[in-house]
C-alpha cells in the first residue's frame, strides 16, 4: 500500500481522439488501450493478447496502425488517434472499409474485426500518402501478397483470412 502510492505519478495528457480534443489524467504505466476503453469508454478497441501479437487492439496514430496494448498513453500527447468508433461517419453510416468487410462476409465472431478494419484503413492511408505528389511514379494497388504482409499482425481465428483479403483488394480497386 504505502510503497505503491509513492510511485503512482499521474500525468495529464491531451490528444485528439476521433477528431475530438480529449484530455485525461493517467498513470505513467497506463497503455493507450486501457485509457481508450476504461477512461474514455470506447469499447470497440479489443484487448486480445496484450502482447503485440494479435492486433485486436489496433488503432491509428496520425493515420498509421499501432498496437494500443504496447503503446504508453503518455506518448499519445498531441497526437491524432483514430479508433473503430472514429471510422463510422457522423451520420452513423459505415466507412468503406467496414462496408467492404460486411459485403464480403469477412466478419464471423467479430473479435478481430475492429483491429482488422483499422489495420486496413492504415494501409489505405499509407498508400494514399506515398502516392501524394508522386506524379507518374504512383504505386499501383497492393498485391495480395502485400496485403497479407500488411495484415500479418492481425490474427483471426474464424474466417481463414481469404474474405478479409478479398475485401481489402476490392477497396483498392474502388480507390482508383
Amino acid at each position, binding site marked *: 500500500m504505502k510503497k*505503491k502510492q509513492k510511485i503512482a505519478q499521474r500525468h495529464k495528457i491531451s490528444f485528439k481522439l476521433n477528431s475530438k480534443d480529449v484530455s485525461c489524467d493517467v498513470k505513467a504505466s497506463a497503455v493507450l488501450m486501457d485509457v481508450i476503453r476504461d477512461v474514455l469508454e470506447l469499447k470497440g478497441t479489443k484487448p486480445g493478447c*496484450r502482447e*503485440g501479437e494479435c492486433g485486436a487492439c489496433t488503432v491509428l496514430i496520425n493515420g498509421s496502425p499501432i*498496437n494500443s496494448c504496447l503503446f504508453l498513453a503518455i506518448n499519445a500527447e498531441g497526437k491524432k488517434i483514430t479508433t473503430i468508433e472514429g471510422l463510422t461517419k457522423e451520420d452513423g453510416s459505415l466507412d468503406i472499409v467496414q462496408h467492404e468487410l460486411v459485403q464480403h462476409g469477412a466478419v464471423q465472431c467479430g473479435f478481430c474485426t475492429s483491429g482488422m478494419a483499422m489495420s486496413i484503413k492504415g494501409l489505405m492511408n499509407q498508400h494514399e500518402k506515398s502516392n501524394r505528389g508522386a506524379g507518374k511514379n504512383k504505386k499501383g494497388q497492393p498485391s495480395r501478397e502485400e496485403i497479407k504482409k500488411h495484415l500479418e*499482425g492481425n490474427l483471426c481465428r474464424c474466417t481463414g483470412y481469404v474474405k478479409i483479403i478479398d475485401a481489402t483488394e476490392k477497396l483498392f480497386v474502388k480507390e482508383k
Partner: protein
Amino acid sequence: MDFKITSPKNKAGLLKAMQEGKNFRFGAGYTDLLMELKKQEETSFTIINLAQLNDKTFTEINTISGGLRIGSLATAAEIVNDKFITQHFPALQEAAHSLASSQIREVATIGGNLCTASPSGDMACALMALEAQCEILSANGKTRTVPISGFFTGPRKTVLQKKEVLRSVLVPLLEKNRKLHSGFIKVGTRRSMECSVVSLAYHIHLDRNDSIVHAGVAIGASAPTIRFAKTACDLISGNNLKTISQKDKEEFAAKVVSYASPITDIRATAWYRKEVLFNISKSIFE
C-alpha cells in the same frame, strides 16, 4: 506494473535527466521494454522516455560524408520506406521489413533493436553485416563511437555504460555506385512474427565483372550475440559471384556455420538451426 517516467523534450533536458538520474532505463518504442516491465510488480528505476525527444541527431536519417547517419529513434517503418536505404543498404531495408508486424514496425526503433541486444534482433543483424558504427552520447555531453562488432558484449548486454545513451548509427557507404548483392534472410516458425530460428544478413560489393570486392555477412539467433562471419567473408573475397564453385559455396557456408553455437529450445533444435544456416548461407549465391 508501475514506474516513474520523465519525458525530456530536447537534448539539454535529456542530459539533465541522465545526470540527475540514479537508477534509470531508457524507453523508445517500448515494444521490448513494456513486455519486460509487465512481468514486474514494481520497478526501482525511473524511465527516461525518449519518445518525445525532439532532436534531429536522434530522430532523423541523413546522408553524411562517407555514409548514412540513422538516428536511434528512427522506426523500422521509416527505414523500410527510406529510398536511400532501399537503394544502398538493401540488407537493412529487408531486415526492417521482416521485423514483427506493420503495427510494431511503426513504433519499434532501430536503437531499441540494438540496445535490447537480442541475438535475434533483425535490424541489428543487418547493421552488423553493414559494419555500422554506434554513436554513444554520455551524460556529460561527450560522444564516443564504437564499431558494432564491439557493441554487444553478451546476450542482452552492450558496451553502454550507466550514463550513456545510443544516439545514432553510422552506416558506411564504400562507394556510391558499386554493384551490390545485399539482402536479409530469416527463417522463423510463424511468418515474420516471433523470434527467428536463424537469420543471415549479407552485403556484398561487386566490381563491374561481378567479382567480390568486399563482403559483410552476419548471423542472428545462432549464438549468444549476433556475429560477423569474418573468415567466411575473407574466403569469398576476390571470387566471382556468378561463377563461384559449388565447393567454395559449401566452404563458405561451413565457415558461416562455424560462428554459430545454437541452442535447442522450444522453437528449434541446435542441429536444425545449423542445417538451416548452412543451407541459407549457400543460397545467397543462387
